[in-house]
């Protein structure tokens, strides 16, 4: 095992970690905003991937060109989920926390079924995009172009998220998070803030999905694996913390890649879960979380 291989694997893991970070940021945003865990988060990623695939097949639009379109589409999906299901489950007077968990679980099962109905269970892939089958070489390290682009775009999207959190709207988000009753008194429409928050969370997943579809297989259940990693990432970084999601995402990507190097690749997630358990024992609120 030469240093070049280790470096190659580590950079690959780092790039994957940036995707994990963006997926986790969407989840973390929603959690931080209203203490709701979206158990259909992975299925939003799956939707974005299938949407990219379908538009690519039908219109021949390259995934890269589709970025703004899919982001907008998933923004709409996120906002619609909030308006249609989450607002309702928050209005419930009994077992609110539990209703929210199982409503989003029901949604995730429904979406997997819908994808199976429309697309079948076969694995799909986009193999003729602009980024497909190309590599970049930096010294001895050779990386697939699609993965490099995905890492960079996700990093950019992450930066956009941080910028949004600093705008007027970001402050409204923050205020609504602090006290959802009081913001109504200063003229902030709570429902609107929440649905935009869900929209942004959806758009983040949408961008990750587009970039992922350039080099990752697409199937109805592809989301569950990414969702699981997103939960671990969010718990690791601290619920509701954006910088936490970035650092934890990269950490998870690195650990996953390096575990696959030293252990059987089918066990690559054991490394991630091991750090999660360590964090759970010694720092339950995560690296950057507020308790």
């Amino acid at each position, binding site marked *: 095992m030469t240093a070049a291989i280790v470096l190659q694997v580590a950079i690959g893991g780092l790039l994957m970690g940036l995707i994990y970070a963006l997926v986790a940021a969407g989840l973390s945003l929603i*959690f931080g905003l209203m*203490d709701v*865990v979206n158990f259909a988060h992975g299925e939003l990623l799956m939707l974005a991937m299938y949407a990219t695939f379908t538009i690519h097949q039908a219109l021949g639009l390259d995934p890269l060109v589709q970025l703004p379109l899919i982001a907008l589409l998933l923004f709409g999906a996120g906002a619609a989920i909030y308006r249609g*299901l989450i607002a*309702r*489950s928050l209005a*419930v*007077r*009994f*077992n*609110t*926390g*539990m*209703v929210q*968990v*199982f*409503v989003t*679980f*029901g*949604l*995730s*099962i*429904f*979406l*997997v*079924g*819908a*994808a*199976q*109905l429309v697309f079948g*269970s076969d694995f799909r892939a986009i193999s003729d995009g602009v980024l497909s089958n190309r590599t970049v070489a930096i010294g001895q390290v050779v990386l697939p172009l699609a993965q490099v682009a995905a890492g960079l775009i996700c990093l950019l999207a992450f930066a956009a998220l941080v910028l949004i959190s600093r705008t007027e709207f970001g402050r409204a988000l923050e205020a609504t998070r602090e006290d959802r009753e009081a913001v109504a008194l200063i003229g902030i429409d709570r429902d609107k803030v929440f649905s935009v928050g869900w929209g942004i969370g959806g758009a983040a997943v949408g961008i990750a999905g587009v970039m992922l579809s350039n080099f990752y297989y697409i199937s*109805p259940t592809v989301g*569950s694996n990414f969702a*699981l990693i997103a*939960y*671990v990432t*969010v*718990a690791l970084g601290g*619920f509701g913390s954006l910088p936490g999601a970035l650092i934890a995402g990269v950490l998870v990507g690195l650990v996953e890649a390096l575990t696959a190097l030293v252990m*059987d690749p*089918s*066990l690559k*997630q*054991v490394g991630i*879960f091991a750090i*999660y*358990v360590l964090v*759970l*024992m010694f720092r*339950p609120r995560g690296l950057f979380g507020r308790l």
Partner: protein
Amino acid sequence: MRRPGTSNVIIRRRRRELVVGAILLVLFVLLPLPIGNTYLRGLIVLTLLYAGLSQGWNILGGYCGQISLGHALYFGIGAYTSAMLFTVLGVPPTLGMFAGGILAGLAALLVGWPCFRLSGHYYAIATLVVGMTALLLVQNWDFVNAAMGITIPFRADSWSDLEFRVAVLPFHYVMLAYAAVAWLIAWVVEGSRWGFYWRAVKDDATAARSLAVRVFPSKMAAAAISGFITGVGGALYSQYVGFIDPDSTLGLSLSVLIALPAVVGGVGTLWGPLLGAAVLIPVQQLSIAWLGSAGNGIDLMIYGMLIIALALARPQGLVSLLGVRSQAGGEVAESA
């Protein structure tokens, strides 16, 4: 907190519950006799199994309010322990199921130890991750045949081995006994000191602590009982189906399916898991049989929509339709 005189009301209500439980038991003993259809009998067997499993989940998730999304772990431990003891050492599953249940209870304590420091969604996610880790490890563990699973060999018709040439009718009574014992355990703990502790912890852990309720040990007790019941259910399942593999005994969808009957029927209620299983399991199984056999996903869509609709329309559970008072938190469920 309790007005004088209410204790009599409670004693009377609990006595009534026992009577209703006994009547139901008799009905279920007789139920398969007029039903000739094997598929329908099998459906009732599964419903009884999930009624028992969910009753176990309800002790931790309902009474004590700790929403576990990793109960498949305890189910899997029960199933694998009993199956390994039987196939490798020849230990009869009637004993193996207790070994599986005890191991599952111990596992629940081990999981609870770090996880009970977390609350709400943090706890739910931690249990989910622990469950998925176990799935991943068992999928790669050659000693238990990894992802290939274990086939339980048929030796002879035997009650001690829980093996029958025609399994549906005997297993009706096995699962009925399981569901009945799980119900009885729930009935006993509901009226015990633990039951009151759990409800206090669920309502407000800080307030409970200030009233000298030992929160952590209470949660651990709920976890151990809950894990034990779930583990025994896993062992019975492995004998009934004759084959176990990591996906069917440790997957996330199983964890959700164990929790759902209680959620749909009424969390923290004695009858909720029974009622929820009676509604949910037939709908889920029939939609698989009628619509999902081609793998087209319609069954999943119906199942998902049903969960959403029931959770939103009846958040207090289907028991509220019967005018049963929720025992958890003491809200009057019928008022909503």
